[in-house]
């Protein structure tokens, strides 16, 4: 019994996402659970940095998983599950932010509630600067440095030319440098 459980675990660790998707589609909760465990932290972090709030990140990432799992039957196995999921996360996060802006009005967007309160001061300041970026730039920063996608894949994920991604990344990095300089000046 114990041996069998261990071999299942080993088998799952070796499984590709596509194999897990197939098994989850056939009703395996273990496979679905493994998919969740692999992708939840990244999806949640992306949602956190895009929305700037923990509660909203919880909702966005959970909602993205629910949508993705509910649509597993339609998922094209030849494509990476992670990229599909992350696209849902990004779209849901932006959708919610836009809806909230309609709820609260443009000038009264809520401040981030310190979703990274446990981080070192320097990292915290940097993440706050990322959240202060415009949405398109924030998204490419999260996808590039938070989730490790190369610019070409980000372009394919967002449906934009790679050149646009390069340009947004360069401008976002420039913005961040500028924000850091302003922060240093204020602190000194």
């Amino acid at each position, binding site marked *: 019994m114990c041996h069998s459980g261990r071999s299942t675990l080993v088998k799952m660790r070796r499984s590709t996402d596509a194999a897990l998707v197939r098994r989850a589609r056939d009703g395996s909760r273990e496979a679905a659970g493994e998919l969740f465990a692999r992708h939840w932290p990244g999806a949640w972090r992306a949602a956190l940095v895009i929305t700037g709030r923990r509660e909203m990140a919880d*909702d966005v990432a959970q909602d993205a*998983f629910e*949508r993705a799992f509910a649509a597993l039957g339609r998922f094209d196995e030849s494509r990476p599950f992670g990229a599909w999921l992350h696209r849902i996360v990004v779209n849901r996060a932006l959708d919610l932010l836009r809806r909230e802006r309609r709820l609260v009005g443009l000038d*009264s967007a809520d401040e981030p509630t310190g979703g990274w309160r446990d981080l070192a001061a320097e990292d915290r300041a940097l993440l706050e600067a990322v959240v202060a970026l415009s949405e398109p730039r924030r998204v490419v920063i999260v996808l590039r440095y938070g989730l490790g996608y190369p610019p070409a894949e980000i372009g394919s994920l967002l449906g934009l030319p790679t050149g646009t991604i390069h340009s947004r990344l360069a401008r976002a990095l420039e913005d961040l440098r500028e924000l850091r300089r302003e922060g240093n000046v204020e602190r000194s």
Partner: protein
Amino acid sequence: MSSDLEKQLERALREPAPSEQSTSRARGAALDAIPEARPPRPRRRRLGLAVIAMATAALAITGVTLAASPAVREAVGIDEHHPPRHDTAPPPDRSPLPEGASGFATVVGDRIWLARPGGGVARLRGTAFELSPNAIYAAAGRPGRLVILDPASLRRVKAHRVDGTVVAVAWAPIGIRIAYIVRHDGRFALHLIEGDLSGDTVVDRDVRPVTPAWRWDSLAVAYVGGNDTVKVQDLEFGRTVAERTPRCAVPSRGPTDLAFAPHGTRLAVAQLFGSTGWIADTSGGRSFCLPLGVARQGPIAAGGGIAWISRTDLMTTPSSTLVRIRVGVRDGRVLQQVETPSGLESIAAAPDRRTIALALNGHRLNVMVVPIPAPDAAKVRLLRILLQTPSPGWSPGSHLLWR
């Protein structure tokens, strides 16, 4: 080659971690979202029939519970296409209920989405639905029956035969009495019945199909009479009083929503025709119209367009705008108004009156929780998405229940 900034970004962006609670909740919800795999088709029909016969015999021998039988499923109205899930061991913190809620349901037409305390959402069908105070029980309308359910297991606790179809149910705040409306031969009648479904009495044989509203002390129930007059049945003195519609609410047709204040005798009325809302002082004081605060008034959402958030303040929804009104003795004044996306269909206040739920109808129905903003605040902040449903088909009578 990565710059220092890029390296720091890579490090910082991978630092934050989700809480165990949100992880556990999301995991449960995500696994529940996977459609159930279709069972493999039996190779031979004869073998399939034999298996069914054996299973039926085994169930009969072992005395399977009544709740599993099709008759009860029919009585309860569980949607066979979306049977509620019965996880044997749901993680304890997987509840989709908003904070402070004992029960939450979205009623859209004959479909009910019920947030379950153990996690997940059950989908049911019914002609009407209501949760008791603290969501200890649920009442569901079915053609020819009023059924009391256990919201956790969805098992039928008791059923009461009615002559017609139950179209609206309202549970008294103290929980021992239920008001319900039955449609029969094209007419609607208001009934009162005890919580154990005994002592069914007809209060009025000519009413409108608008959900009755109970006063906080459960000693009076307001409803809309057949001539569109708002009436209050006083259970303490056994009399019915017709409230005078204020002149400003003319044409005096079409009250669509009734809501008693959390304390006192004031009753808020939303009226579709004339797009207005008004306050009736059911203790005999004068009635007055509410200022809705928008230049171009549109209708208050039918079915949950008014939510009292304190003894004196209510929120309402004219022209798809969220308006907070302070209700005085002789008039009301607008404290705040916030634009919302089009499609605001209904609001419901939390039992602790700290948050409200909004139903927004678009290509999907989104039910969201937002904190009640301070009177001087200009913003509403989204807290949680409670529910999203496809093809909402929001219709008069659809509403949110928050207990």
